[in-house]
């Protein structure tokens, strides 16, 4: 899963375009797929999560798609909240893909190194599957005109090791930041 901008910086109100692709898809295993663009808080306070864009494909609808080819979706980001890195909490934006597979509850999943979100560990009770998450930042229109700051390593690593899973994109961004 990849966002349309390499630096991952979007101004509030910008158009976000994401491309996603599943390598070696096995139609018999796919039970559903959810794409969402959301922000969540992390830190000392309990987590708040708000979904800005959400789309769900059932198994029947997935069979109509050619998942080996890149698919994309786009959404216009809202004016707020902006990404925030505070003392007590942080506001993080991300595009998240949750893939539901059959038989994931009883055994390991070979998903090209992606993490499996278990029913209990990922915070989503009963919803087992693979979660791929691509973080990005939403800044104000004024900040968007300024040159991008380097992505803080702790912010990226936090995204990469989040309970619901990590992604190749997160790892790639972590390597870029270093």
């Amino acid at each position, binding site marked *: 899963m990849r966002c349309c901008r390499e630096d991952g910086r979007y101004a*509030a109100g910008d158009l976000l375009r994401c491309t996603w692709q599943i390598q070696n898809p096995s139609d018999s295993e796919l039970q559903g797929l*959810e794409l*969402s663009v*959301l922000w969540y*808080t992390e*830190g*000392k*306070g*309990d*987590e*708040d*999560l*708000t*979904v800005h864009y*959400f789309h*769900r494909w059932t198994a029947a609808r997935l069979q109509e798609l050619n998942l080996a080819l890149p698919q994309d979706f786009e959404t216009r980001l*809202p*004016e*707020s*909240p*902006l990404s*925030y890195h*505070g*003392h*007590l*909490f942080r*506001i993080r934006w991300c595009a*998240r893909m*949750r893939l539901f597979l059959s038989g994931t509850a009883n055994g390991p999943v070979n998903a090209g190194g992606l993490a499996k979100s278990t*029913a*209990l560990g990922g*915070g*989503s*009770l*009963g*919803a087992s*599957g693979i979660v791929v998450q691509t973080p990005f930042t939403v800044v*104000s*229109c*004024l*900040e968007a005109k300024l040159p991008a700051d380097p992505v803080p390593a702790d912010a990226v690593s936090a995204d990469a090791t989040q309970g*619901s899973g990590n992604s190749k994109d997160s790892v790639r961004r972590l390597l870029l930041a270093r």
Partner: protein
Amino acid sequence: MRTCDLAEAGNVFSRVSHPNPLFRRELESAMLKIPQPWSKKRGSRLAARLFSGVVGEVLFFVVLLLVGLFGVAITIAMLVLRRTSAEAAPDIVQAGLPTWIFLTSSMVLTITGIGGVTYRIMRIGASDERRAALANRSRRLDLSGPMDQPARMLPSVPQGSDLTNSPGIRLAFRLPSSGSPIAAVAAAAILALLWCGTWVVLAAVAVSGIWWGNPRPMLTFLLLPLGAIGIWSARYFLRQLRESAGVGATIIEVSNNPLVPGETCRVYLAQYGKLKLRRLRVLLVCEEEAIFRQGTDVRIDRHMVCESVIFAEKSVLVDLRAPWEQEFDMLVPDGAMHSFQSPHNAVTWKIVVEGESRPWPSFCRSFPVVVHPPHAPSTKDQR
């Protein structure tokens, strides 16, 4: 698999001796998760596992449902039986109020059980994102017409409608204070009046007993500590009254609302009362607020993000005949975070007026303001 000494498993502080460190760590963590109902949960936000909690909740609501159904069934059976008996013998008393109360309670239990079980089952099998999207969709149902349109353009930013509905005299908006001193004075007055009133009644009983030759020594002795508490409550009330009446009202008016980072706003300050202030400061404060659960407690933590002094003056003399007034500019820091509000986290902005005075106690009054993201679509209410 090698066996461990299970006798040690009862003690959560005991260390497990096993050559395999992975197995040892797993066993230790499993042992540490044993909840102790008599101890206070500290540190960890959840002592039990999430799955156990959901199963417990479902079982609780199932029990409620079954008890409710049993109550409804037995009440209906009794009513039918009574009606049949009444047809046979008309002099039997009809169903009374207790029967209907029992039936209503049973129905409430049944409905609560059905609702609880349904809600918890719906949560199982849905991802966090799907639940949030469903919640969003239900929130977007337009029930109030176009009045909500401006608020939707800036999600998670407080609307601050209370801050714009009061026009000012000098500038466009008069800001409401976050804490009213009247509530503190009223609470102190109620405490002092109730306590002192009770003490007077008890004193009358004690004096009448002595007068009629039937003294009550225990009551007379207790009047001393009770009277001391009464004196303390009366002094507390007088101090609160003196603070609110002596310091007088503080008025803040602003030219722009909401505020925007990097922009300047005109502020008008008026201080009423009769007092001599050693120092008066006006600050623009940004605070983070986080609500979290610790064990069974809900806690709030606050952290000051930034504090900028926008006005300060020493030796301020406030006269009763006219308020002390001042008008000055206030710059919202460039690049600052906008106001943010979510169920458990918030970023709040406020103007704080601090006065250090003698002989009156020092005071500190807060006036919340809303800061929007820069260059957001204009919802500014210009007057």
